[in-house]
Protein backbone atom coordinates (compact mmCIF):
# COMPACT_ATOMS: atom_id res chain seq x y z
CA UNK A 1 0.00 0.00 0.00
CA UNK A 2 1.32 3.40 -0.91
CA UNK A 3 -0.21 6.50 0.58
CA UNK A 4 -0.74 8.07 -2.83
CA UNK A 5 -4.08 8.46 -4.59
CA UNK A 6 -2.43 8.32 -8.00
CA UNK A 7 0.99 7.06 -8.91
CA UNK A 8 2.65 7.12 -12.33
CA UNK A 9 5.97 5.44 -13.04
CA UNK A 10 7.42 5.48 -16.53
CA UNK A 11 3.97 5.93 -18.09
CA UNK A 12 3.96 5.98 -21.87
CA UNK A 13 1.29 6.28 -24.51
CA UNK A 14 2.00 5.53 -28.12
CA UNK A 15 -0.48 5.96 -30.93
CA UNK A 16 0.27 4.30 -34.26
CA UNK A 17 2.71 6.90 -35.50
CA UNK A 18 3.82 8.92 -32.50
CA UNK A 19 4.43 8.87 -28.79
CA UNK A 20 2.26 11.40 -26.94
CA UNK A 21 3.28 10.55 -23.37
CA UNK A 22 6.98 9.81 -23.16
CA UNK A 23 7.67 8.16 -19.82
CA UNK A 24 6.15 10.23 -17.02
CA UNK A 25 6.54 9.89 -13.25
CA UNK A 26 4.46 11.60 -10.60
CA UNK A 27 2.61 10.90 -7.37
CA UNK A 28 -0.49 12.59 -6.01
CA UNK A 29 -0.90 12.69 -2.25
CA UNK A 30 -4.39 12.62 -0.74
CA UNK A 31 -6.12 15.89 0.09
CA UNK A 32 -4.33 18.15 -2.36
CA UNK A 33 -5.31 19.83 -5.58
CA UNK A 34 -2.92 18.64 -8.26
CA UNK A 35 -2.67 20.62 -11.47
CA UNK A 36 -1.69 19.32 -14.88
CA UNK A 37 -0.75 22.28 -17.04
CA UNK A 38 0.39 22.47 -20.59
CA UNK A 39 -0.37 23.95 -23.99
CA UNK A 40 -2.88 22.26 -26.30
CA UNK A 41 -1.44 19.01 -27.58
CA UNK A 42 0.93 18.64 -24.61
CA UNK A 43 -0.65 15.35 -23.55
CA UNK A 44 -2.88 16.54 -20.66
CA UNK A 45 -6.04 14.96 -21.98
CA UNK A 46 -4.32 11.67 -22.83
CA UNK A 47 -2.88 11.51 -19.32
CA UNK A 48 -6.38 12.04 -17.89
CA UNK A 49 -8.04 9.57 -20.23
CA UNK A 50 -5.54 6.90 -19.28
CA UNK A 51 -6.14 7.62 -15.60
CA UNK A 52 -9.88 7.03 -16.11
CA UNK A 53 -9.36 3.82 -18.06
CA UNK A 54 -10.60 5.46 -21.27
CA UNK A 55 -7.31 4.89 -23.06
CA UNK A 56 -5.03 1.86 -22.57
CA UNK A 57 -1.58 2.57 -21.10
CA UNK A 58 1.10 1.54 -23.60
CA UNK A 59 3.82 1.07 -21.02
CA UNK A 60 4.64 1.83 -17.39
CA UNK A 61 2.92 1.63 -14.05
CA UNK A 62 -0.14 3.86 -13.64
CA UNK A 63 -2.21 3.26 -10.53
CA UNK A 64 -5.34 4.75 -8.99
CA UNK A 65 -5.96 3.85 -5.33
CA UNK A 66 -3.20 1.23 -5.68
CA UNK A 67 -4.98 -0.55 -8.51
CA UNK A 68 -4.09 -0.41 -12.20
CA UNK A 69 -6.01 2.37 -13.93
CA UNK A 70 -7.69 -0.22 -16.18
CA UNK A 71 -9.58 -1.55 -13.15
CA UNK A 72 -12.96 0.22 -13.30
CA UNK A 73 -13.93 -0.87 -9.79
CA UNK A 74 -11.99 2.17 -8.55
CA UNK A 75 -14.48 4.39 -10.36
CA UNK A 76 -16.82 4.10 -7.41
CA UNK A 77 -14.34 6.36 -5.56
CA UNK A 78 -13.83 8.83 -8.40
CA UNK A 79 -15.90 11.73 -9.73
CA UNK A 80 -15.26 13.10 -13.20
CA UNK A 81 -16.06 16.54 -14.61
CA UNK A 82 -15.32 16.31 -18.34
CA UNK A 83 -14.58 19.32 -20.46
CA UNK A 84 -17.30 18.45 -22.94
CA UNK A 85 -20.83 18.83 -21.67
CA UNK A 86 -22.32 15.32 -21.61
CA UNK A 87 -25.34 15.93 -19.43
CA UNK A 88 -28.55 14.27 -20.54
CA UNK A 89 -30.44 16.98 -22.45
CA UNK A 90 -33.72 15.05 -22.24
CA UNK A 91 -33.75 15.09 -18.45
CA UNK A 92 -34.40 17.64 -15.76
CA UNK A 93 -31.55 18.68 -13.47
CA UNK A 94 -32.74 16.33 -10.75
CA UNK A 95 -33.31 13.38 -13.07
CA UNK A 96 -29.81 13.78 -14.49
CA UNK A 97 -28.45 13.19 -11.01
CA UNK A 98 -30.87 10.33 -10.29
CA UNK A 99 -29.95 8.47 -13.43
CA UNK A 100 -26.24 9.00 -12.82
CA UNK A 101 -26.62 7.67 -9.27
CA UNK A 102 -28.02 4.52 -10.86
CA UNK A 103 -24.71 3.83 -12.62
CA UNK A 104 -23.06 3.63 -9.21
CA UNK A 105 -25.75 1.35 -7.86
CA UNK A 106 -26.93 3.98 -5.37
CA UNK A 107 -30.48 3.27 -4.19
CA UNK A 108 -33.11 5.79 -5.24
CA UNK A 109 -34.00 6.72 -1.65
CA UNK A 110 -30.35 7.37 -0.75
CA UNK A 111 -29.84 9.30 -3.95
CA UNK A 112 -32.81 11.59 -3.27
CA UNK A 113 -31.42 13.10 -0.08
CA UNK A 114 -27.93 13.29 -1.57
CA UNK A 115 -29.31 15.13 -4.60
CA UNK A 116 -30.93 17.79 -2.40
CA UNK A 117 -27.58 18.45 -0.74
CA UNK A 118 -25.76 18.56 -4.07
CA UNK A 119 -28.24 20.97 -5.64
CA UNK A 120 -27.76 23.22 -2.63
CA UNK A 121 -23.98 22.92 -2.97
CA UNK A 122 -24.10 23.74 -6.67
CA UNK A 123 -26.44 26.71 -6.11
CA UNK A 124 -29.09 24.99 -8.24
CA UNK A 125 -31.66 24.28 -5.53
CA UNK A 126 -34.38 26.28 -7.29
CA UNK A 127 -33.64 24.76 -10.72
CA UNK A 128 -34.13 21.09 -9.89
CA UNK A 129 -37.12 20.62 -12.16
CA UNK A 130 -35.75 22.60 -15.11
CA UNK A 131 -34.64 20.86 -18.26
CA UNK A 132 -30.88 20.94 -18.69
CA UNK A 133 -31.29 22.72 -22.01
CA UNK A 134 -32.65 25.76 -20.16
CA UNK A 135 -29.57 26.21 -17.95
CA UNK A 136 -26.80 28.72 -18.58
CA UNK A 137 -23.24 27.55 -19.27
CA UNK A 138 -22.19 28.21 -15.68
CA UNK A 139 -25.16 26.29 -14.27
CA UNK A 140 -24.47 23.33 -16.52
CA UNK A 141 -20.87 23.21 -15.39
CA UNK A 142 -21.99 23.38 -11.76
CA UNK A 143 -24.42 20.56 -12.44
CA UNK A 144 -21.55 18.52 -13.87
CA UNK A 145 -19.59 19.15 -10.68
CA UNK A 146 -22.62 18.09 -8.64
CA UNK A 147 -23.02 14.98 -10.78
CA UNK A 148 -19.38 14.09 -10.21
CA UNK A 149 -20.04 14.18 -6.45
CA UNK A 150 -23.08 11.89 -6.48
CA UNK A 151 -21.03 8.87 -5.31
CA UNK A 152 -19.26 10.90 -2.60
CA UNK A 153 -15.88 10.32 -4.28
CA UNK A 154 -12.47 10.60 -2.66
CA UNK A 155 -10.93 11.87 -5.88
CA UNK A 156 -12.43 14.40 -8.28
CA UNK A 157 -10.94 14.77 -11.73
CA UNK A 158 -11.70 17.99 -13.59
CA UNK A 159 -10.79 18.69 -17.21
CA UNK A 160 -10.64 22.46 -17.75
CA UNK A 161 -13.52 23.16 -15.37
CA UNK A 162 -13.87 26.87 -16.09
CA UNK A 163 -13.23 27.05 -19.83
CA UNK A 164 -15.83 29.23 -21.50
CA UNK A 165 -17.33 30.61 -18.30
CA UNK A 166 -17.73 34.27 -17.39
CA UNK A 167 -15.77 35.57 -14.37
CA UNK A 168 -18.69 35.28 -11.95
CA UNK A 169 -19.37 31.68 -12.93
CA UNK A 170 -15.67 30.88 -12.81
CA UNK A 171 -15.22 32.27 -9.30
CA UNK A 172 -18.24 30.34 -8.07
CA UNK A 173 -16.75 27.11 -9.44
CA UNK A 174 -13.39 27.88 -7.83
CA UNK A 175 -15.04 28.57 -4.51
CA UNK A 176 -16.84 25.22 -4.66
CA UNK A 177 -13.65 23.38 -5.58
CA UNK A 178 -11.81 24.97 -2.65
CA UNK A 179 -14.58 23.89 -0.30
CA UNK A 180 -14.22 20.31 -1.59
CA UNK A 181 -10.54 20.43 -0.82
CA UNK A 182 -11.35 21.71 2.65
CA UNK A 183 -13.45 18.58 3.12
CA UNK A 184 -10.41 16.44 2.45
CA UNK A 185 -11.10 15.50 -1.17
CA UNK A 186 -8.24 15.07 -3.61
CA UNK A 187 -8.58 17.09 -6.81
CA UNK A 188 -6.87 16.68 -10.15
CA UNK A 189 -7.26 19.58 -12.51
CA UNK A 190 -6.11 20.15 -16.06
CA UNK A 191 -6.15 23.70 -17.25
CA UNK A 192 -4.37 26.15 -19.42
CA UNK A 193 -5.53 29.07 -17.31
CA UNK A 194 -2.57 29.93 -15.14
CA UNK A 195 -4.74 32.05 -12.90
CA UNK A 196 -6.91 29.02 -12.20
CA UNK A 197 -3.90 26.87 -11.40
CA UNK A 198 -2.47 29.52 -9.09
CA UNK A 199 -5.82 29.90 -7.31
CA UNK A 200 -6.44 26.23 -6.73
CA UNK A 201 -3.38 24.02 -7.04
CA UNK A 202 -1.12 22.96 -4.19
CA UNK A 203 1.18 21.18 -6.58
CA UNK A 204 1.42 21.11 -10.32
CA UNK A 205 3.30 19.75 -13.25
CA UNK A 206 3.85 21.58 -16.51
CA UNK A 207 3.67 19.22 -19.42
CA UNK A 208 4.81 19.69 -23.01
CA UNK A 209 5.37 17.24 -25.86
CA UNK A 210 4.55 14.36 -23.53
CA UNK A 211 7.19 15.08 -20.89
CA UNK A 212 7.14 16.94 -17.58
CA UNK A 213 9.04 20.22 -17.89
CA UNK A 214 8.84 21.14 -14.24
CA UNK A 215 6.89 20.49 -11.04
CA UNK A 216 6.28 22.09 -7.67
CA UNK A 217 4.03 24.51 -5.84
CA UNK A 218 2.95 27.58 -7.84
CA UNK A 219 5.01 29.82 -5.56
CA UNK A 220 8.13 27.68 -5.78
CA UNK A 221 7.87 27.47 -9.57
CA UNK A 222 7.70 31.24 -9.88
CA UNK A 223 10.68 31.61 -7.54
CA UNK A 224 12.65 28.98 -9.39
CA UNK A 225 12.03 29.97 -12.99
CA UNK A 226 11.37 33.69 -13.22
CA UNK A 227 12.41 36.90 -11.54
CA UNK A 228 10.04 38.47 -9.06
CA UNK A 229 8.80 41.39 -11.15
CA UNK A 230 7.83 42.02 -14.73
CA UNK A 231 7.51 45.19 -16.74
CA UNK A 232 5.76 44.72 -20.08
CA UNK A 233 6.76 47.62 -22.32
CA UNK A 234 5.20 48.72 -25.61
CA UNK A 235 6.27 51.51 -27.95
CA UNK A 236 9.97 50.64 -28.20
CA UNK A 237 11.22 50.94 -31.77
CA UNK A 238 13.65 48.00 -31.88
CA UNK A 239 15.89 45.66 -29.89
CA UNK A 240 18.61 48.31 -29.72
CA UNK A 241 16.12 50.72 -28.18
CA UNK A 242 15.13 48.05 -25.63
CA UNK A 243 18.77 47.34 -24.77
CA UNK A 244 19.36 51.04 -24.26
CA UNK A 245 16.33 51.32 -21.94
CA UNK A 246 17.67 48.50 -19.74
CA UNK A 247 21.30 49.57 -19.93
CA UNK A 248 23.17 48.94 -16.66
CA UNK A 249 20.15 47.27 -14.99
CA UNK A 250 19.91 43.58 -14.06
CA UNK A 251 17.04 42.86 -16.43
CA UNK A 252 16.28 39.81 -18.60
CA UNK A 253 14.35 40.67 -21.77
CA UNK A 254 11.93 38.66 -23.85
CA UNK A 255 10.55 40.14 -27.07
CA UNK A 256 7.14 39.06 -28.40
CA UNK A 257 5.44 40.99 -31.19
CA UNK A 258 5.21 44.64 -30.12
CA UNK A 259 5.95 43.96 -26.45
CA UNK A 260 9.18 43.60 -24.51
CA UNK A 261 8.82 41.62 -21.27
CA UNK A 262 11.49 42.77 -18.83
CA UNK A 263 12.13 40.54 -15.80
CA UNK A 264 14.09 41.54 -12.74
CA UNK A 265 14.20 41.13 -8.97
CA UNK A 266 13.67 44.86 -8.55
CA UNK A 267 12.10 46.63 -11.47
CA UNK A 268 11.68 50.07 -9.91
CA UNK A 269 14.65 51.69 -11.70
CA UNK A 270 13.29 50.46 -15.02
CA UNK A 271 9.83 51.77 -14.19
CA UNK A 272 11.37 55.16 -13.43
CA UNK A 273 13.07 55.22 -16.84
CA UNK A 274 9.90 54.17 -18.64
CA UNK A 275 7.93 56.93 -16.94
CA UNK A 276 10.23 59.53 -18.46
CA UNK A 277 9.48 58.42 -22.00
CA UNK A 278 5.98 59.48 -22.88
CA UNK A 279 5.87 57.40 -26.09
CA UNK A 280 6.09 54.17 -24.04
CA UNK A 281 3.19 52.37 -22.43
CA UNK A 282 4.02 49.84 -19.75
CA UNK A 283 2.57 47.59 -17.08
CA UNK A 284 4.48 46.71 -13.92
CA UNK A 285 3.34 43.57 -12.10
CA UNK A 286 4.62 40.70 -9.98
CA UNK A 287 5.70 37.64 -11.95
CA UNK A 288 3.01 34.98 -12.24
CA UNK A 289 2.68 31.35 -13.15
CA UNK A 290 1.91 32.49 -16.67
CA UNK A 291 5.44 33.85 -16.99
CA UNK A 292 6.84 30.49 -15.89
CA UNK A 293 4.59 28.69 -18.32
CA UNK A 294 5.52 30.88 -21.27
CA UNK A 295 9.21 30.75 -20.44
CA UNK A 296 9.16 26.95 -20.38
CA UNK A 297 6.78 26.18 -23.23
CA UNK A 298 7.70 29.10 -25.46
CA UNK A 299 5.68 32.06 -26.62
CA UNK A 300 5.27 30.91 -30.18
CA UNK A 301 1.84 30.14 -31.52
CA UNK A 302 1.65 26.45 -32.35
CA UNK A 303 0.27 24.73 -35.38
CA UNK A 304 -1.75 22.28 -33.24
CA UNK A 305 -3.13 24.99 -30.94
Amino acid sequence: MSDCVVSAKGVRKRFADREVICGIDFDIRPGICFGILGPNGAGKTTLMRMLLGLSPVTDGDYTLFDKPVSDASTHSRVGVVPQQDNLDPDFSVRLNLHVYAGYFGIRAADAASRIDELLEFAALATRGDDKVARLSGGMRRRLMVARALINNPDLIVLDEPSTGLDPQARHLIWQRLRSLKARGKTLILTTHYMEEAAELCDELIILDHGTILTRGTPRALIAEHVEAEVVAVRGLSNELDAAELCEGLDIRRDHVGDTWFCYGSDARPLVARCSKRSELSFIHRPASLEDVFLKLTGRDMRAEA
Partner: protein
Amino acid sequence: MSALSLQPGHVLAVWRRNFLVWKQLAAASMLGNFGDPFLYLLGLGYGLGHYIGDMSGIPYMAYLASGILCSSAMNTATFEGLYSAFTRMNQQGTWESMLATPVRINEIIAGEQMWAASKSLISGTAIFIVAGLLGAIQQWDTALLALPVIFLIGLAFAGPALAFCAVSPSYDFFLYYFTLAITPMFLFCGVFYPLDTLPAAVQDFAQILPLTHAVALVRPLLTEMPLTEPWLHAGVLAAYAIGGFLLATRLATRRLLR
Protein backbone atom coordinates in the same frame (compact mmCIF):
# COMPACT_ATOMS: atom_id res chain seq x y z
CA MET B 1 -11.92 -8.04 -19.48
CA SER B 2 -14.23 -10.70 -20.78
CA ALA B 3 -17.09 -9.30 -22.83
CA LEU B 4 -19.47 -11.72 -21.16
CA SER B 5 -18.76 -10.70 -17.58
CA LEU B 6 -21.72 -8.43 -17.00
CA GLN B 7 -23.06 -6.96 -13.79
CA PRO B 8 -26.86 -7.04 -14.05
CA GLY B 9 -27.17 -3.82 -12.03
CA HIS B 10 -25.03 -1.92 -14.51
CA VAL B 11 -26.90 -3.29 -17.53
CA LEU B 12 -30.19 -2.41 -15.89
CA ALA B 13 -29.00 1.15 -15.12
CA VAL B 14 -28.19 1.70 -18.81
CA TRP B 15 -31.55 0.22 -19.82
CA ARG B 16 -33.35 2.38 -17.26
CA ARG B 17 -31.75 5.56 -18.58
CA ASN B 18 -33.15 4.90 -22.03
CA PHE B 19 -36.50 3.84 -20.62
CA LEU B 20 -36.83 7.12 -18.70
CA VAL B 21 -36.12 9.15 -21.84
CA TRP B 22 -38.68 7.10 -23.75
CA LYS B 23 -41.26 7.54 -21.00
CA GLN B 24 -41.11 11.31 -21.43
CA LEU B 25 -41.83 11.06 -25.14
CA ALA B 26 -43.78 7.81 -25.19
CA ALA B 27 -46.75 9.00 -27.23
CA ALA B 28 -44.72 10.41 -30.12
CA SER B 29 -42.37 7.45 -30.06
CA MET B 30 -45.19 4.92 -30.14
CA LEU B 31 -46.72 6.55 -33.17
CA GLY B 32 -43.43 6.27 -35.05
CA ASN B 33 -42.88 2.60 -34.22
CA PHE B 34 -46.41 1.55 -34.62
CA GLY B 35 -48.01 3.77 -37.26
CA ASP B 36 -46.12 2.34 -40.21
CA PRO B 37 -46.79 -1.37 -39.61
CA PHE B 38 -50.40 -0.54 -38.80
CA LEU B 39 -50.82 1.09 -42.22
CA TYR B 40 -49.22 -1.90 -43.94
CA LEU B 41 -51.58 -4.19 -42.13
CA LEU B 42 -54.67 -2.23 -43.10
CA GLY B 43 -53.60 -1.31 -46.62
CA LEU B 44 -52.17 -4.63 -47.73
CA GLY B 45 -54.17 -6.90 -45.45
CA TYR B 46 -57.53 -5.56 -46.56
CA GLY B 47 -56.65 -4.27 -50.02
CA LEU B 48 -54.44 -7.06 -51.29
CA GLY B 49 -56.07 -9.66 -49.04
CA HIS B 50 -59.34 -9.13 -50.84
CA TYR B 51 -57.81 -10.44 -54.10
CA ILE B 52 -55.52 -13.03 -52.59
CA GLY B 53 -57.93 -14.73 -50.24
CA ASP B 54 -55.86 -17.45 -48.56
CA MET B 55 -52.10 -17.87 -48.54
CA SER B 56 -50.47 -21.12 -47.40
CA GLY B 57 -53.91 -22.22 -46.28
CA ILE B 58 -54.70 -19.28 -43.97
CA PRO B 59 -56.45 -15.94 -44.59
CA TYR B 60 -54.03 -13.36 -45.99
CA MET B 61 -54.68 -10.93 -43.12
CA ALA B 62 -53.53 -13.57 -40.63
CA TYR B 63 -50.57 -14.44 -42.84
CA LEU B 64 -49.53 -10.82 -43.20
CA ALA B 65 -50.09 -9.79 -39.57
CA SER B 66 -47.63 -12.38 -38.25
CA GLY B 67 -45.06 -11.26 -40.82
CA ILE B 68 -45.51 -7.56 -40.09
CA LEU B 69 -45.17 -8.28 -36.38
CA CYS B 70 -41.68 -9.69 -37.08
CA SER B 71 -40.61 -7.00 -39.52
CA SER B 72 -41.69 -4.23 -37.17
CA ALA B 73 -39.64 -5.84 -34.38
CA MET B 74 -36.71 -5.84 -36.81
CA ASN B 75 -37.19 -2.21 -37.80
CA THR B 76 -37.73 -0.92 -34.29
CA ALA B 77 -34.63 -2.63 -32.86
CA THR B 78 -32.51 -1.66 -35.86
CA PHE B 79 -33.56 1.96 -35.69
CA GLU B 80 -32.79 2.10 -31.98
CA GLY B 81 -29.43 0.36 -32.42
CA LEU B 82 -28.39 2.71 -35.21
CA TYR B 83 -29.81 6.21 -34.93
CA SER B 84 -30.66 6.45 -31.25
CA ALA B 85 -27.54 4.64 -30.07
CA PHE B 86 -25.37 6.78 -32.36
CA THR B 87 -26.81 9.93 -30.79
CA ARG B 88 -25.89 8.62 -27.35
CA MET B 89 -22.47 7.37 -28.41
CA ASN B 90 -21.36 10.23 -30.64
CA GLN B 91 -23.46 13.36 -30.20
CA GLN B 92 -24.45 13.48 -26.55
CA GLY B 93 -21.45 11.76 -24.97
CA THR B 94 -23.85 9.61 -22.94
CA TRP B 95 -21.68 6.49 -23.23
CA GLU B 96 -18.58 8.41 -22.23
CA SER B 97 -20.35 9.76 -19.16
CA MET B 98 -21.24 6.16 -18.24
CA LEU B 99 -17.66 5.01 -18.74
CA ALA B 100 -16.55 7.43 -16.02
CA THR B 101 -18.62 5.33 -13.59
CA PRO B 102 -18.16 1.63 -12.74
CA VAL B 103 -20.26 0.76 -15.84
CA ARG B 104 -18.17 -0.95 -18.59
CA ILE B 105 -18.50 -0.78 -22.34
CA ASN B 106 -19.88 -4.34 -22.67
CA GLU B 107 -22.53 -3.44 -20.10
CA ILE B 108 -23.46 -0.36 -22.11
CA ILE B 109 -23.85 -2.49 -25.25
CA ALA B 110 -25.88 -5.07 -23.34
CA GLY B 111 -28.12 -2.37 -21.85
CA GLU B 112 -28.63 -0.76 -25.25
CA GLN B 113 -29.42 -4.13 -26.82
CA MET B 114 -31.93 -4.99 -24.10
CA TRP B 115 -33.53 -1.59 -24.49
CA ALA B 116 -33.82 -1.91 -28.28
CA ALA B 117 -35.46 -5.30 -27.78
CA SER B 118 -37.80 -3.76 -25.22
CA LYS B 119 -38.88 -1.20 -27.78
CA SER B 120 -39.53 -4.03 -30.23
CA LEU B 121 -41.66 -5.63 -27.59
CA ILE B 122 -43.57 -2.42 -26.89
CA SER B 123 -44.42 -1.73 -30.53
CA GLY B 124 -44.93 -5.45 -31.16
CA THR B 125 -47.47 -5.65 -28.38
CA ALA B 126 -49.41 -2.76 -29.88
CA ILE B 127 -49.48 -4.48 -33.29
CA PHE B 128 -50.38 -7.75 -31.61
CA ILE B 129 -53.46 -6.12 -30.08
CA VAL B 130 -54.50 -4.57 -33.39
CA ALA B 131 -53.97 -7.90 -35.15
CA GLY B 132 -56.18 -9.52 -32.54
CA LEU B 133 -58.89 -6.90 -33.08
CA LEU B 134 -58.71 -7.44 -36.84
CA GLY B 135 -59.24 -11.16 -36.32
CA ALA B 136 -55.76 -11.99 -37.60
CA ILE B 137 -54.84 -14.15 -34.61
CA GLN B 138 -56.20 -17.66 -35.01
CA GLN B 139 -54.58 -19.50 -32.10
CA TRP B 140 -54.98 -17.68 -28.81
CA ASP B 141 -53.58 -20.57 -26.77
CA THR B 142 -50.08 -20.19 -28.31
CA ALA B 143 -50.30 -16.57 -29.47
CA LEU B 144 -48.94 -15.07 -26.24
CA LEU B 145 -45.74 -17.08 -26.70
CA ALA B 146 -45.04 -14.77 -29.62
CA LEU B 147 -44.32 -11.90 -27.24
CA PRO B 148 -41.09 -13.30 -25.73
CA VAL B 149 -40.11 -14.33 -29.25
CA ILE B 150 -40.52 -10.70 -30.34
CA PHE B 151 -38.11 -9.68 -27.58
CA LEU B 152 -35.63 -12.26 -28.89
CA ILE B 153 -36.09 -10.92 -32.43
CA GLY B 154 -35.32 -7.45 -31.08
CA LEU B 155 -32.09 -8.72 -29.50
CA ALA B 156 -31.12 -10.47 -32.74
CA PHE B 157 -31.44 -7.27 -34.78
CA ALA B 158 -30.18 -4.81 -32.17
CA GLY B 159 -26.80 -6.60 -31.84
CA PRO B 160 -25.72 -6.28 -35.48
CA ALA B 161 -27.18 -2.75 -35.65
CA LEU B 162 -25.07 -1.68 -32.65
CA ALA B 163 -22.00 -3.21 -34.28
CA PHE B 164 -22.65 -1.22 -37.46
CA CYS B 165 -23.31 1.89 -35.38
CA ALA B 166 -19.93 1.50 -33.66
CA VAL B 167 -18.05 1.78 -36.97
CA SER B 168 -20.23 4.42 -38.64
CA PRO B 169 -18.68 7.86 -39.05
CA SER B 170 -22.09 9.56 -39.36
CA TYR B 171 -25.83 9.05 -39.59
CA ASP B 172 -25.60 8.96 -43.40
CA PHE B 173 -24.11 5.46 -43.35
CA PHE B 174 -27.22 3.94 -41.82
CA LEU B 175 -28.96 4.24 -45.16
CA TYR B 176 -26.57 1.59 -46.54
CA TYR B 177 -27.52 -0.72 -43.73
CA PHE B 178 -31.19 -0.31 -44.48
CA THR B 179 -30.78 -0.67 -48.24
CA LEU B 180 -28.38 -3.61 -48.12
CA ALA B 181 -29.67 -5.56 -45.13
CA ILE B 182 -33.04 -4.49 -43.75
CA THR B 183 -35.09 -3.82 -46.90
CA PRO B 184 -34.02 -7.08 -48.65
CA MET B 185 -35.00 -9.02 -45.56
CA PHE B 186 -38.31 -7.19 -45.41
CA LEU B 187 -39.04 -8.32 -48.98
CA PHE B 188 -37.44 -11.79 -49.22
CA CYS B 189 -37.83 -13.48 -45.84
CA GLY B 190 -41.44 -14.53 -45.96
CA VAL B 191 -43.22 -11.50 -44.54
CA PHE B 192 -45.53 -11.05 -47.54
CA TYR B 193 -45.43 -14.43 -49.32
CA PRO B 194 -44.01 -17.92 -48.77
CA LEU B 195 -40.30 -18.45 -49.43
CA ASP B 196 -40.95 -21.42 -51.69
CA THR B 197 -42.12 -19.11 -54.47
CA LEU B 198 -38.51 -17.85 -54.77
CA PRO B 199 -35.68 -19.43 -56.83
CA ALA B 200 -33.84 -22.18 -54.95
CA ALA B 201 -30.62 -20.18 -54.54
CA VAL B 202 -32.50 -17.27 -52.98
CA GLN B 203 -34.36 -19.67 -50.68
CA ASP B 204 -31.05 -21.12 -49.49
CA PHE B 205 -29.64 -17.67 -48.90
CA ALA B 206 -32.75 -16.63 -46.99
CA GLN B 207 -32.08 -19.48 -44.55
CA ILE B 208 -29.09 -17.66 -43.08
CA LEU B 209 -31.06 -14.44 -42.52
CA PRO B 210 -32.57 -13.83 -39.09
CA LEU B 211 -35.91 -12.49 -40.31
CA THR B 212 -36.65 -15.80 -42.08
CA HIS B 213 -36.34 -17.61 -38.77
CA ALA B 214 -38.30 -14.93 -36.91
CA VAL B 215 -41.24 -15.34 -39.29
CA ALA B 216 -40.99 -19.15 -39.26
CA LEU B 217 -41.26 -19.07 -35.48
CA VAL B 218 -43.92 -16.41 -34.95
CA ARG B 219 -46.39 -17.25 -37.74
CA PRO B 220 -47.26 -20.76 -36.48
CA LEU B 221 -47.71 -19.38 -32.97
CA LEU B 222 -50.43 -16.98 -34.16
CA THR B 223 -52.06 -19.01 -36.91
CA GLU B 224 -53.10 -22.57 -37.73
CA MET B 225 -49.89 -23.23 -39.67
CA PRO B 226 -47.82 -26.08 -38.17
CA LEU B 227 -44.75 -25.19 -36.10
CA THR B 228 -41.60 -26.94 -37.30
CA GLU B 229 -38.10 -26.90 -35.79
CA PRO B 230 -38.79 -24.13 -33.24
CA TRP B 231 -35.40 -24.59 -31.53
CA LEU B 232 -33.50 -24.19 -34.77
CA HIS B 233 -35.24 -20.87 -35.41
CA ALA B 234 -34.75 -19.68 -31.84
CA GLY B 235 -31.12 -20.83 -32.00
CA VAL B 236 -30.39 -18.78 -35.12
CA LEU B 237 -31.96 -15.69 -33.54
CA ALA B 238 -29.96 -16.23 -30.34
CA ALA B 239 -26.77 -16.63 -32.37
CA TYR B 240 -27.38 -13.28 -34.08
CA ALA B 241 -28.09 -11.68 -30.71
CA ILE B 242 -24.93 -13.01 -29.04
CA GLY B 243 -22.70 -12.64 -32.10
CA GLY B 244 -23.93 -9.08 -32.60
CA PHE B 245 -23.32 -8.28 -28.94
CA LEU B 246 -19.74 -9.58 -29.02
CA LEU B 247 -18.94 -7.80 -32.27
CA ALA B 248 -20.54 -4.53 -31.12
CA THR B 249 -18.60 -4.67 -27.84
CA ARG B 250 -15.35 -5.21 -29.70
CA LEU B 251 -15.96 -2.43 -32.21
CA ALA B 252 -17.21 0.06 -29.62
CA THR B 253 -14.14 -0.66 -27.50
CA ARG B 254 -11.95 0.07 -30.48
CA ARG B 255 -13.80 3.29 -31.17
CA LEU B 256 -14.13 4.73 -27.68
CA LEU B 257 -11.23 3.31 -25.66
CA ARG B 258 -8.27 4.29 -27.75
